[in-house]
Structure formats: C-alpha cells, structure tokens
C-alpha cells in the first residue's frame, strides 16, 4: 500500500523532525515521571499511542458536528473515556505496572500531546490521516520514553525489564548502580542529551545564535 507524501509525513514526521517530546517539548512531565524503569515506559508509550490514535479518529469523525465553543470539553470527554478504558484494562491485566504508573495513566488526559494533536490535526483532517497522525505522535513520544527508560533502568538498577544485565563480577570489582538515575532530574538530563544529539544531526532545527 503506497502512502501519499502527506500521510507519510503525518506518520513519520513525529518520529524524527517533528517529534512531540524533543522538538515541540510536550509531554515532558510523564516522560520524567514514569521512565525510571523500562517496563512502565513501554506500557505508557503503548497506552498513549492507543489513546491518541483512537481520540484522533473519534474527534476527526465528529469534527463537523462539534460546536467550536465547546470543542475542548468534547475533546476532554473523549480522551477521558478512552483513558478510563485503558486504566481499567491495565488494572485488570497488568496490575503491577498500573501501580508503578500510579496517577500517570489518569494524567494522560492532561498530556499536552493529546490536546495538541486533537486541536492541531484531528479537527481539520479526515479519520485516516488523523489515525496515522495519532500513531505517529504516540510512537514519537514512545520511543523517547523507551530510550530514557532503557538508560535509567540500565544505569540506575543494572537491570532491563527486571532482568539483571550487569554481571556480578562488575559489582565485585566495585561498580555501583547510579542512584541519581532513579531521580527525576536525570530523566530531564537524558532527554536533554537526546535533544542535543538530535539537534546536532539536524542542522535545520538549531536555533539561530547571535
């Protein structure tokens, strides 16, 4: 199935040049809060991608009938419904992860990326591009979360998805896990490092220096 340039941009743009986290700097709060381990990062990424794609499609279908003045309320209702479903599913099938994510599943409602995409894209585009846009932005948000979660869990607890990956002889030789990695500031610094690498590879994203 060939995709047109526009749909391709909607799907792939957010993964790189138009990334919601490292270019638009949205959704930072949850990126800091849930990434101390890889597993919650993955679950959060999937949850946001699903909610965003579904909300985009629903709002896009309703876009002709939503009165302009109450559109935010309608968007909130749609997102809140979807988040509640995700939250209940998580409680039923992945209770431990749900506990680790705590309020941040519920706070997907207020995730800036969601409102941003609904306002900026779904209200002006058809369901199919909106769906792709939702998937794209969800994955764009997700890969940052997973990358940050990967390094925080690896360096902070020496594990990945709960399995020990740093061998015992390293600890015997005096290696220690980095406690700072488990604290939120380090997530901010890791996001900054990703932004640093990304900007230095994409010259057109760099701000003009005077």
């Amino acid at each position, binding site marked *: 199935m060939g995709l047109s340039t526009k749909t391709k941009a909607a799907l792939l743009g957010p993964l790189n040049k138009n990334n919601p986290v490292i270019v638009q700097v949205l959704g930072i709060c949850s990126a800091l809060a849930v990434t101390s381990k890889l597993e919650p990062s993955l679950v959060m990424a999937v949850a946001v991608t699903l909610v965003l794609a579904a909300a985009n499609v629903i709002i896009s279908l309703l876009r002709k009938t939503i009165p302009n003045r109450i559109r935010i309320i309608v968007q909130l209702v749609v997102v809140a419904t979807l988040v509640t479903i995700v939250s209940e599913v998580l409680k039923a099938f992945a209770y431990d992860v749900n506990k680790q994510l705590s309020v941040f599943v519920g706070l997907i409602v207020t995730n800036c990326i969601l409102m941003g995409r609904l306002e900026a894209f779904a209200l002006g585009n058809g369901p199919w591009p909106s769906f792709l846009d939702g998937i794209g932005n969800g994955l764009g948000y997700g890969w940052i979360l997973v990358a940050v979660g990967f390094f925080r869990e690896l360096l902070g607890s020496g594990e990945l998805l709960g399995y020990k990956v740093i061998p015992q002889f390293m600890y015997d030789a*005096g*290696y*220690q896990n*980095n406690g*700072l990695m488990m604290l939120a500031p380090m997530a901010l610094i890791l996001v900054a490092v990703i932004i640093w690498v990304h900007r230095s590879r994409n010259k057109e994203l760099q701000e003009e220096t005077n």
Partner: protein
Amino acid sequence: MKALRNYLDKIKPNFEEGGKLHWLYSTYDAFETFLFVPNTTSKRGVHIHDARDSKRTMIIVIVALIPALLVGMYNVGLQHYMAIGQEVSLLNKFLFGLIAMLPLIVVSYVVGLGIEFAMAQVKKEEVAEGFLVSGMLIPMIVPIDTPLWMVAVATAFSVIFAKEVFGGTGYNIFNVALIVRAFLFFSYPSKMSGDQVWVRTADTFGMGKGSVIDGYSGATPLGQIATTEAGSFSEFTFHGITGDPLSISDMFFGFIPGSVGEVSTFAILLGALILIATGVGSWKTMLSVFVGGAVGVLLVNTFAQNAIMEMPLYYHFLLGGFAFGAVFMATDPVTSARTERGKWIYGFLIGLMAITIRVFNPGYPEGMMLAILLMNAFAPLIDFYVIDANIRRRLKRAAAVSQQA
C-alpha cells in the same frame, strides 16, 4: 628555557593552518601560553591590561588552597594511623596522606582537563584555564575513600553538563566542583556519607598496613550529632575515631575525620587571608556567609528542641564544610552574585540555608553544598534586582533634581 622555546617554534608549523596536526592547535596553544607569556599584542584601539588575568587568579586560588591541602593530607595519615593504632613519625603520616590523595588529584585533573581540551579542540577555541581550580577542589571535598572511577564519572558529568553545555569557563551557572560532589552524593550515597568513608582504614599501595583497633568509629562530628540520641547538647560529646573526646583545638586545626579540604579551619583561614589580601576572593561574600550562619544558629538555639539545635555557634563554624564553602566555594566569581550589594544577600542566604539544612534535615548532616548550589541558581536574580533597585533610585533622584530646576 631557550631549548624549550626553540622546540616549540620548531613544532609550531605542524599545528598551524595547513599543518598535519592543525586539529590539535588548541592543545598546542594551551601549552605554549602555559609555558611562555604570549608576545602578541592588540593592534587597534585602547586596551587596558590588568595584571589579574584569569590564569593568575586561578594560580592564587591554588596557592590559597595549599595550606588546607597540606593539613588535610597530614590529617588523612593521622586518622589512618590512629585507626590502626600505630605510632609513626609526622613525616610518615604526611606521606601516607600524600599517596592516598595523589590518585584523586590525578584522576580529577586528567578527566576534567581531557574534556576541556577536547571541547576546545572541537570548538576551535583556546583552552580556558577554569578547570585548574575545580580540579584541585574536587579531591578536597570528597571523602578520601571515594573510588577513583566514581570521581572520574562525576567529573566528566560535571564538566560536560554543568560547564561546557553552558558555554565553558565563565558561563557556568553552578559551581563545577560542587556539582561533582552533588552528583556523587545523589548517585552513590553509600560512598559519600555515613561513617565508613571519611577515614582510610586500608593500606595505600602497601603503606600503613594494619588492622583496625577495637572501638573504632569513623563518623564525622556532624554525622555524630545528626544521629545522636542525646536529648540535649550538654549530654553530648564529640568523639574522635578512637572514642576519645575531641577538643576545640582538634576541630580548629583539623585533626578530625572529614573531607581533606574542610577539616582544618585554621588552614582555611590562612587561605582566606591570601584570597582577601590579593583581592581574588570577596571578603563581603565570606563575611556575609558567616553572618548568615550566625543568625541561623542563634535562631535555632533560641527555639532549641534537641542536641543539634542547641549546638553553639562556634561548632557550626569549625565543623563540616562551612568554612571551606564560605571561603572557596561561595566566592567563586563566576557563580556568585556580581553586584557588591548582591554579594551580601547571596552570602547571607547561603549561611542561613546551610544551617537550616544541617539542623532540620538529618538525611543531610552537611548543608553547605546544597546551600551554595541553591544560591548559585538565585545569584543572577539577586543581581537583577540589585541593579533594578539602583536604576529606580537614580531615576527618582534625577526626577527630583529636574523638578527643583
């Protein structure tokens, strides 16, 4: 000298435009200007030269650090031989401290300067001399038993994220050496606090072998009072690592467990004299830190509930990193407030915060590091309002004058 100059001249073409080692020009330039005063002069315009360029300023701070460093090294040996219960000569104690300390100094300088040189090379700039002091401060404010790889990781982190990303020497918001310490403190708390890290009990390169005596306790005085169960200060005594009580002179001259730099208030005061006499460190900042600390202590003394709240003023000044922070950290010209009135506010709040953290947070027996880092963040704001107030005052005066006329 002559031979050195000739050699530098001989290899210079390799580093200049077109030479095969041109990419190493910054490194060459750094060594050339380190060895010889550059003889290039400005061609246009008026330039005022002050004898206090940054290289000289840095050297003076290093000189001011030397008393604290020497006493601290001796103290490392002293505490070690006390811990293993052996009597050795003064020179032996000093030598032990020296060889225990040297690896820390070497690691700190090699890692920090390595990154600085590499960054200068990439940015094609001159190598700035800002790390000369930081590199010496770092080993002086960490426990003697900090593993070397941790010092290396923390130094690399600090130089890159606290300094280079902000633009290098002179642009950093936070004190680089303190960021190293903060990074270590939050990353590896077991190696940075508690009673196991302040005294080296193992031998160093085979020197000073022995087993630890019975009744040994390596807690620092501040650590002792933070965890004491004594209900009031009069029931509490500071004790050294052998269990004997500590006298005021022990604390003043620095024969207590602690980081190398901060133990000897006497040596720090010598350093302060050098800094103030040469004008390198601001006496206003130093004095106001102590004033702020004094106000804080008097306040908590008045409402004292437990031993540490009752601890008298002079103990606060003699123990922990208070004096060291006030003299060498708070006065860092880059990260402190720059306006003269701002320095008073900045220093005062550092002293107050340090005492507050010390007294009210048993998790952090020493508050100086966090207090200075916090005020580093506020220094630009303080400056902004001091300047703003000055502008308003002068505008008001100008308005009054013009009304009279």
